């Protein structure tokens, strides 16, 4: 999948732990792991909204497209 989820960069910028992030966004830690490992097949806009709100960033800061 050429879409990469860059949560770790934003988490490092905010100095937020994965556990706190998962709790504040309302995701299970397992699903956060799926997002971080690039195994996610699809993300809801509501999830994206919550992630942007918690990390105070834009969707473009979280998602990156690369050539295969």
């Amino acid at each position, binding site marked *: 999948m050429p879409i990469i989820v860059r949560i770790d960069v934003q988490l490092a910028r905010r100095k937020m732990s994965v556990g706190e992030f998962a709790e504040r966004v309302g*995701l299970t830690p397992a*699903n956060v792991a*799926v*997002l971080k490992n690039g195994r*996610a*097949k*699809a*993300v*809801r806009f509501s*999830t994206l909204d919550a992630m942007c709100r918690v990390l105070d960033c834009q969707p473009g800061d979280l998602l990156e497209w690369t050539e295969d």
Partner: protein
Amino acid sequence: MQIQRWAVLLLRVSLVTLFVVLLLLQTFSFPGQFAFMAQQHPQSAHLRWPLTFVFAFWILCAQVVLFAIWKLLALIGANRIFTSVSMTWVDVIVRAIAAAWIILAGVLLYVGLHADDPGLPLLLFTWFIGVTVLGLLMIVMRALLRQATALQTDMDEVI
């Protein structure tokens, strides 16, 4: 949701009632009926056991369908209808209807070739069409279930 719950409950009561009635027909009513017919019409006595077995088999098919519906209702109750488990029970229903259909086709052919008035063949033909429609409908619904299950599986992967 409330209406669905009531419908499921009533359906369960009806399924049990129907199952018990079919069991009574299968074990007491039809065998007795055919034994009586063999006494009354000795010229047709040779049909007693074939008829008993055919009717017992048809009722068995209906019972299998009822049981599979019961299982599917349990899956609906557990919110697991769009999983591969339900496909198994839908397959059971389709196969039971197919088995009854094949025997019905055979009986229709036999009666059609030996009949001297059109009443019974026409009645059997109506049944035959009815069972055909039921079977085809189940095949269409099976395809719908497969689509919905695939969609649900995709949706479950959305984070």
